[in-house]
């Protein structure tokens, strides 16, 4: 297992380096003029040139690349054109909200995917009908789903808040994790925890819908396949209950593809946060990207891409290890 972790970690580093390269390529092909945008409309041409030199846009590409890597190693992602802050500082500010949302959505997606996958694998009419509903639901663009959810649960039923991370009648604690749910639990304010959770439900649900379907589909397929495996028959021949057979024998062995799918779905979810955070006014990286796009704020966009990419790669790293844990055959290879 140790060797496996080591090997996967090597791959992780390679992928991160690749990600950095891709982001650098993106930065260099940008058509608009960040220096100009930075100094403002009324600035002189000299000021623009000076800014360009300061940002290093005049240097030859290889030099820019090494400088870029050096900066990256120091955690320097340049300054946002819009907020005029260090992008790193901005990301630090916005990341916890997205982490909280994406994590909740991930848990929700896995839970829904698990339940629905079991239901679908069970087959029967109910499974088929649910599948069609699910596909239909996941086929609606997320922005519409989001707004309709707000309409139902906020406007009509009035049981859930429409937007934001927390009601404005609460005092938001300053840290330590900046994850509201965690912080409020640490701070011992259950009403805040409850409020934060309520704010999480709708955006997390919107975000989780599509991944849940993908996970459910993968799980049901591999469950159906595993059902045909001899060891499931063996398990039955031992006189185990169907429940034990399913949970102890079938599910664990069927979990591999579903786990892989969950990891991959995180990528989709990280893309989805841009839409969902905008609809639900969720102050996270997605909103940051959305606003940066409107401002052609490339240091911000590429910085956020780098962060989300890293998060995604890390998630898949852990998914990989989980899989190795679930399937001992992988471990020894």
């Amino acid at each position, binding site marked *: 297992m140790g060797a496996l972790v*080591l090997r996967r970690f090597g791959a992780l580093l390679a992928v991160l380096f690749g990600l950095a390269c891709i982001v650098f390529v993106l930065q260099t092909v940008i058509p608009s003029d960040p220096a100009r945008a930075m100094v403002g409309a009324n600035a002189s041409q000299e000021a623009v040139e000076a800014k360009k030199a300061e940002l290093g846009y005049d240097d030859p590409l290889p030099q820019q690349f090494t400088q870029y890597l050096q900066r990256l190693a120091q955690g320097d992602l340049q300054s946002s054109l819009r907020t005029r802050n260090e992008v790193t500082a901005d990301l630090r500010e916005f990341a916890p909200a997205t982490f909280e949302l994406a994590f909740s959505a991930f848990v929700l997606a896995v839970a829904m995917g698990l339940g629905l996958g079991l239901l679908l694998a069970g087959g029967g009419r109910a499974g088929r009908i649910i599948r069609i509903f699910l596909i239909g639901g996941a086929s609606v663009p997320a922005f519409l789903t989001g707004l309709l959810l707000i309409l139902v649960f906020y406007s009509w039923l009035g049981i859930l808040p429409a937007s934001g991370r927390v009601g404005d009648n609460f005092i938001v604690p300053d840290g330590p994790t900046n994850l509201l749910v965690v912080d409020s639990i640490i701070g011992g304010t259950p009403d805040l925890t409850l409020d934060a959770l309520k704010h999480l439900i709708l955006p997390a649900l919107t975000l989780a819908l599509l991944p849940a379907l993908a996970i459910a589909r993968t799980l049901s397929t591999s469950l159906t396949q595993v059902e045909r495996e001899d*060891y499931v028959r063996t398990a039955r*021949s031992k*006189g*185990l209950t169907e429940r034990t057979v399913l949970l102890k024998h079938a599910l664990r062995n069927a979990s591999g593809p579903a786990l892989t799918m969950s990891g991959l779905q995180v990528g989709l979810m990280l893309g989805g946060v841009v839409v969902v955070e905008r609809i639900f006014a969720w102050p996270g990286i997605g909103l940051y990207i959305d606003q940066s796009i409107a401002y052609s704020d490339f240091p911000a966009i590429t910085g956020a891409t780098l962060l989300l990419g890293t998060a995604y790669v890390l998630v898949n790293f852990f998914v990989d290890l989980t899989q190795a844990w679930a399937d001992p055959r992988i471990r020894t290879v």
Partner: protein
Amino acid sequence: MTGTGPVLDVQDLHVTFASSGGDVHAVRGASLQIAPGEVVGLVGESGSGKSVLGLTALGLLPRKPEPRLEGVVLLDGLDMITATDEDMRARRGTDISAVFQDPMGSLNPSMRIGAQVAEAAGGATDEEVAEMLAATGIPEPEHKARAYPHELSGGLRQRVMIAMALSRHPKLIIADEPTTALDVTVQAKVLDLLAAASRERGVALLLVTHDLGVAARICDRIAVAYAGRIVEEGTAAQLLQQPHHPYTVGLLASRPRLDGSIAGGDLPTLPGRPPDPRLPLAGCAFAPRCPAADAQCAGPLAIHVNGERRNECHHPGVLTRWPEGGPHAGRRDPILLKAPNPVVAPAMVRGVPPEPAVVVRGAVREFERPKPFPFAKRPAPFTAVAGVDLEVPHAGSVAIVGESGSGKSTLLRMIVGLLEPTAGDVTLGPGAPPQMIFQDAGASLTPWMPIGKQIEERLAALDVPSSERGARVAATLEAVGLPAEAQTAVPRALSGGQRQRAAIARAIAVPPALLACDEPVSALDVSLAAQVLNLLCHLRETLDIALLFVTHDLAAARAVADEVVVMQRGEIVERAATEDLFTDPQHPYTRELLAAVPEIHAMAVPA
């Protein structure tokens, strides 16, 4: 519960699966009783319904497609047909348990051995698990209990299965082809273990197998299944020595045997195929293939019961030996095939002294092992073949015999050129490049390409003019006994035997100097295997092809080879003319192999 009645009582069982192409009648009125502690063999070819019967007793028939059940299957008094799922579940493990064929697939890959055994026992301490494992002859049971299935050998895994089956002292164990996937020597040990366990603990055993020899080794009583019915039943001795049903006679006859060579002649074969399970049956199901059948056989079933013996033949005992002559009697016309492209087959020109088909000198093959982690030192390579010398004479026939891991397949693949030797030389004789017949015929054919096309490809590669290819393909198909329609069929549309014939057809479309066969019949039913072996022998004779035959089946080797080579751990341990090797084995390993072969001794047939 009843102490004296049968532990399993199957009466007039019908099992039908609904499928899109019509109902599939897997079992058509089978009856079978097993007394407590009795070891019964249920023998039949694939499609005979033997496995379905076993699964019905376990209450574990697949749910899709949904089976329809009629009749009575009393397991220690409980009717497994009418019982609720829960009742059946409660019986499994405690009253009835199972050992399945593929010991790799039958164990949960992600669960430790010990946990699986403990689970089978309905909960057990580590010590108890170790005891159970030890009882089935597993060394270091405490250590093995912590292993995962893929870390054990096939034989050990099957022992684990047996330990699980025995763990709650059931009254009956269904063993479905428990040794088919194992090496001969392991097979013998596992069979003996099963028999011993059954006898010592008084557990009844239903041994489901396609191999009469396996059944003969340990069974008190044998039942022969054909087309969903038990066509003959009796004590092992009775049935093997005096078979009453022609099918049993045929099965016995077509089995290659260690003590009788067919060299020069044909193995007796069963012509035709079992009836289509989708069609209704009238009269004796075997009649269409039976040399002794007459008009009466189409009439209502005749069931003869005489004490322990029972058979369903209209004329029991009418056949004491199977008539000579295989299905190829009228089909030995190799003329078309004998006109190969002279450019590719100069050896065919008369008068040239024949060179050996292949000469192997000091062949070594090593395989690299993966590094345990990056930057680690690469471990020493694994040596599959460790310096082997071998010669196959022109049009000769050599069999390489050994168990899995002996390096026999690696050697074969080096000879045909699929693998490069790490050291040593492989010198091929003149003629078309060697061809190979694989164990899994279906897998050796490209699934989506019509048979004709696949044969044509080979012709094209050897520059046979396109105008001649059509005729050549047709002739080849005929030569291997395939209908002309096979040309446009994809492999899936053919039966297992037909697929192997198609693979052979491709190999001999332009006769190669050497035809390498890697376990060509081990996946086939006995009667089909005999047909294919016959075919290979005929082709060798008529086309002057040298055969190099890799097999774990000593009987099959004896049937086809002039010379036999025994391999163990990458080396040749013994080499001898076939007769000599079987009558006077020199190397202890050869003797061990021979002793392990499930053999039916002192048989009356063929007389």
